[in-house]
């Protein structure tokens, strides 16, 4: 075929015939019209085949109208912008769109995987649980790789997504989901009643299915009625309308997520800066679901052939896009609605007849059809479809409700089928947060029942099929919602038009159209099309004892495809009901899970990608570190300078140089990240005594003390130096990673346990830039900056504190040391930090000052045997374990963690204790985390007695040093223990004290 054989010469409310659009499908360049979907543009060209099914690789075409589409899944976009698994019925056509079919190899029309179809008899539901078990290794190496390659649908892009995404938060009094006549009416009613309304619709234009609905509203068609309300709503100040936006999920406390496709339909918007998708995070006062109803397929033999569509979808193709589903078709129905499709087709010049399972259809529409001389086979079903890659004919058989197999049938040539098994209210959002539903026999489907949240359903979503009732119900829902949120309602109400619509005959439940053979003997009646689950599979699951509907679902994968059972759930329940003789409500229904339709991970991440993913905290000196070529390491959310390699230096050499500079000359460390908390009040000292293991009430004003903190389990959680600024005023330092945690911890105890204490806790970490100036020449550097300040040991001894000025900068100075050297920590207001840093570097030049990073700091402190919380401790380490018994008060009656520390196990024998280790070979550095064993054996398992916590090559001592937690370590001084490493090597080390350098501590006081 050539040209566009299925584009009708007239009609198509959404297309613009003056704007042809060029696009590609599977490499073929095709032409569609502005307003087309990818589905209609491809079908207009005569192509019905869109993809292959999951398991049997059967050829498949378009079935639905929009979100419910389960077959026509395509990949759209090229390269980094490729997106798989899109429903062709929802992809709006734009110039240059590229698309491909999926799950076929090598091509859509010739798919090797279709081979599966020939053997489908051997692959019933759940077959893989019964085989592929021998030999054992074959699952991983043979069967599974094959299955994995065959499974999956489209392909992921292979590069990072270049597009932007964002979130938007909104609160609305009333959120209306669905912009058909129900949603529009509810919106208008709620808005004129004074509520702020958010209207969400997944389609590019509002109106829902008004344009394919029969009836008159006043002087207008239903389609025009929708347009009129939409126009009025668009002008209201208290309404925000979102189109191309899918309400994806309804969560606790009326929280909703909606997924807006801002720029998917128009690449020019992207280029202009628009995000591709925007995720709306919505807090609703009241939710009105006007999500309509989805048409059900009917299970008949070979009901999956390309060319078999839902009746409303076929109607919409003609009305909206001027595309005929074929040249000659059969409408197969159990209800009145599908007759509208027959009328539309006939009017468009397409040959059509109707097969109606009902013996005596009694509504206005069937009567009209007969009057219009449309051939109707009442009391009949389609028993089988002929043709493989498309429909060539159907067989029509006489049928009475409940009949198991058909006897006589006639064959009718046709090239498409439009089917309607009735309608299922869209209950997804209703059910996401636990709404109850009930079965309605007239609908042969579930409809909303009760809900714990402020949420109502109106129109098709509520099982209301008539236009007049929908309008009344929606208006009432809108008014009531506004009232429930805002209390009283403004007097103005909307006026509803008078509606005339055809009288509907009753639907006849039809879950399954019988065929001549037993349906489970070769005939395939598909229930879940995408996952290839047939009626026979569902019955097999029942026979095998998978009786719970959840078991059936999981065993057969029914309802688990990308449409999440939109078209299959109820039909499946119907089949199970007939198979078991239980009514549908007793079968139960599988849980509806968010989202309604899949939405992009990119939209969930929103703007938080790359540099915005998580914040990196920067000190006031950050840029200097960068300019100096520092290597960084993350410490909590901070980035700290790890070391500052000189040109040509590797990290190792650079660290050693920094260490020796501190030991021999003077070094400068950016310690701004240290937590700083001001604690003030008459009970501040007593409060600190509760928080720390040691005592602070005895600390003198102007003095510093190192403190240990435990949690209530008796394990170390933080440490740091606290200064007494005044009798009732302390400044606490915490670890860099602990600042926020400890501030919150202090607040918690004050507010929840010792509420009588008068203490204020105010974190001030970020107010200060703080530097350590450490080394034998530290004092000279400072004196050069501020000659009048007394830095001498006598005037300013170790563990004391002063305020003053340094080189013109207001400072707090702490004589404290984490390196074991003479050391001053200087704090100045953060915005002055960079200036002071530069001034110190300048003043220190003549003394050989150099910046040092966190790794040099760690080695310096390890040489001195100082612990680092998180290295020497791991959350199960007590102060006793690390040998700091002296810092655990024996006098204080109570402090945090004290009682747990008395627990037998924490005090018990064989605890691991902190010791130093000297390897026999001084050049051998023990690996991080290496374990010592009681006895070295040829092969594991070996009994472990403890592990290395810190290990370095010490440039000061010119040998390796390590700290370790070793079972009964302190009683084992001098013992040589063994560390079996990977590859059989065993390193031996002698247990020593943990202080390796300057054991009498003279240098600190130098």
């Amino acid at each position: 075929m050539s040209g566009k054989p299925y584009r009708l010469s007239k009609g198509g409310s959404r297309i613009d015939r003056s704007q042809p659009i060029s696009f590609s499908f599977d490499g073929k360049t095709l032409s569609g019209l502005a307003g087309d979907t990818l589905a209609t543009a491809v079908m207009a060209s005569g192509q019905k085949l869109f993809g292959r099914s999951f398991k049997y690789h059967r050829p498949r075409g378009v079935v639905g109208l929009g979100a419910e589409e389960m077959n026509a899944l395509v990949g759209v976009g090229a390269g980094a912008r490729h997106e798989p698994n899109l429903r062709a019925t929802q992809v709006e056509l734009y110039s240059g769109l590229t698309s491909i079919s999926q799950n076929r190899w090598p091509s859509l029309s010739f798919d090797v995987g279709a081979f599966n179809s020939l053997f489908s008899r051997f692959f019933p539901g759940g077959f893989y649980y019964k085989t592929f078990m021998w030999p054992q290794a074959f699952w991983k190496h043979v069967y599974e790789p094959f299955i994995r390659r065959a499974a999956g649908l489209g392909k992921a892009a292979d590069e990072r997504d270049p597009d932007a995404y964002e979130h938007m938060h909104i609160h609305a009094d009333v959120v209306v989901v669905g912009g058909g006549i129900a949603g529009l009416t509810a919106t208008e009613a709620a808005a004129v009643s004074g509520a702020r309304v958010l209207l969400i619709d997944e389609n590019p234009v509002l109106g829902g299915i008004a344009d394919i609905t029969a009836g008159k509203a006043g002087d207008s068609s239903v389609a025009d009625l929708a347009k009129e309300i939409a126009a009025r709503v668009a002008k209201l100040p208290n309404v925000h309308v979102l189109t191309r936006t899918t309400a994806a999920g309804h969560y606790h406390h009326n929280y909703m997520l909606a997924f807006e496709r801002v720029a998917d339909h128009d690449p020019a918007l992207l280029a202009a800066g628009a995000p591709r998708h925007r995720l709306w995070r919505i807090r609703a006062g009241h939710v009105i679901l006007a999500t309509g109803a989805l048409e059900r397929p009917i299970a008949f033999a070979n009901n999956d052939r390309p060319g078999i569509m839902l009746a409303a979808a076929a109607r919409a193709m003609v009305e909206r896009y001027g595309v005929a589903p074929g040249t000659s078709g059969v409408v197969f129905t159990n209800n009145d609605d599908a007759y509208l499709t027959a009328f539309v087709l006939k009017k468009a010049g397409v040959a059509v007849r109707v097969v109606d399972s009902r013996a005596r259809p009694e509504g206005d529409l069937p009567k009209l059809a007969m009057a219009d001389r449309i051939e109707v086979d009442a009391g009949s079903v389609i028993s089988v479809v002929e043709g493989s890659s498309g429909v060539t004919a159907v067989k029509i058989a006489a049928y009475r409700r409940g009949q198991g197999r058909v006897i006589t049938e006639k064959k009718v040539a046709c090239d498409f089928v439009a089917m309607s098994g009735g309608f299922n209210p869209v209950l997804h959002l209703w059910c996401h947060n636990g709404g109850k539903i009930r079965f309605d026999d007239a609908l042969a489907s579930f409809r909303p029942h009760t809900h714990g949240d402020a949420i109502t359903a109106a129109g098709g979503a509520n099982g209301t099929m008539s236009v007049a009732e929908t309008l009344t119900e929606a208006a009432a829902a809108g008014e009531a919602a506004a009232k429930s949120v805002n209390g009283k309602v403004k007097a103005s109400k909307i006026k509803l038009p008078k509606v005339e619509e055809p009288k509907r005959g009753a639907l006849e439940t039809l879950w399954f159209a019988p065929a001549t053979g037993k349906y489970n003997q070769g005939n395939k009646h598909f229930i879940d099309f995408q996952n290839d689950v047939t009626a026979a599979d569902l019955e097999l699951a029942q026979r095998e004892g998978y009786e719970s509907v959840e078991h059936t679902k999981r065993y057969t994968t029914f309802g688990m495809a990308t449409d999440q059972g939109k078209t299959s759930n109820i039909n499946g329940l119907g089949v199970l009901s007939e198979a078991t003789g239980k009514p549908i409500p007793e079968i139960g229904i599988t849980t509806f899970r968010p989202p309604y339709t899949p939405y992009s991970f990119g939209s969930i991440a929103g703007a938080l990608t790359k540099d915005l993913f998580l914040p990196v905290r920067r000190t006031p000196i950050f840029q200097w570190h960068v300019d100096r070529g520092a290597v960084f390491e993350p410490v909590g959310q901070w980035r700290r300078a790890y070391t500052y390699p000189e040109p040509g230096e590797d990290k190792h050499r650079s660290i050693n140089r920094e260490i020796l500079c501190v030991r021999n000359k003077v070094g400068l460390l950016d310690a701004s990240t240290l937590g700083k908390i001001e604690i003030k009040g008459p009970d501040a000292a007593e409060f600190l005594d509760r928080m720390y293991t040691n005592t602070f009430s005895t600390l003198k004003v102007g003095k510093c003390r190192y403190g240990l903190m435990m949690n209530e389990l008796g394990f170390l959680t933080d440490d740091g130096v606290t200064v007494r600024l005044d009798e009732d005023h302390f400044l606490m330092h915490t670890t860099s990673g602990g600042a926020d945690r400890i501030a919150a911890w202090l607040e918690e105890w004050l507010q929840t346990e010792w509420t009588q204490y008068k203490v204020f806790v105010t974190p001030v970490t970020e107010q200060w830039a703080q530097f350590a100036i450490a080394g034998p020449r530290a004092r000279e550097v400072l004196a050069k900056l501020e000659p009048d300040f007394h830095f001498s040991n006598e005037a300013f001894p170790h563990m004391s504190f002063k305020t003053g000025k340094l080189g013109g900068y207001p400072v707090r100075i702490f004589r404290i040391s984490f390196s074991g050297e003479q050391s001053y920590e200087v704090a100045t207001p953060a915005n002055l930090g960079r200036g002071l840093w530069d001034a110190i570097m300048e003043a220190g030049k003549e003394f050989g000052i150099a910046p040092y990073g966190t790794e040099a700091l760690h080695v310096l402190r390890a040489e001195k045997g100082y612990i680092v919380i998180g290295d020497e401790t791991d959350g199960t380490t007590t102060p006793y374990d690390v040998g700091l018994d002296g810092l655990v008060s024996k006098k204080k009656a109570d402090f945090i963690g004290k009682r747990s520390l008395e627990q037998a196990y924490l005090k018990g024998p064989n605890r691991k204790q902190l010791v130093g280790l000297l390897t026999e070979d001084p050049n051998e550095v023990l690996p991080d985390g290496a374990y010592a064993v009681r006895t070295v054996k040829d092969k594991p398992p070996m009994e472990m007695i403890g592990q290395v916590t810190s290990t370095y090559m010490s440039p000061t001592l010119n040998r390796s040093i390590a700290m370790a937690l070793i079972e009964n370590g302190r009683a084992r001084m001098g013992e040589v223990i063994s560390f079996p490493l990977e590859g059989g090597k065993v390193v031996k080390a002698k247990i020593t004290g943990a202080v390796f350098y300057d054991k009498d501590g003279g240098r600190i006081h130098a």
Partner: protein
Amino acid sequence: MLVVTCPVCGAKGDETDFHYGGQAHIRRPATHDPVNISDEEQRDYLFIRNNPKGLHFERWRCDRGCGKWFHAARDTQSLEFKAFYGIIELPPEELQKEAKGPWADYFKKRAKAKA
């Protein structure tokens, strides 16, 4: 995403603006009698938790608001909040009465101790 209301400052917001602090009304034995605490008492304090399916009493902090801790009564199944009350207060009488299992025992004991 729950909506939480701070009874101290009245701030109402998403759960992410608040910090959940676990079960309410746990007595810290050491505050009252640091000397005589059995291992069982200490275990109960640290680990044993009421874990009802239904009405529960818990602690929250107005983390991105006034910074204050407070109490809440919440149904752990519907996730509906029944009350917010002060950090040193007991829940409203009617909720104490509604409480089941270990919570009911607790409130009865408190009432008895008071009487």
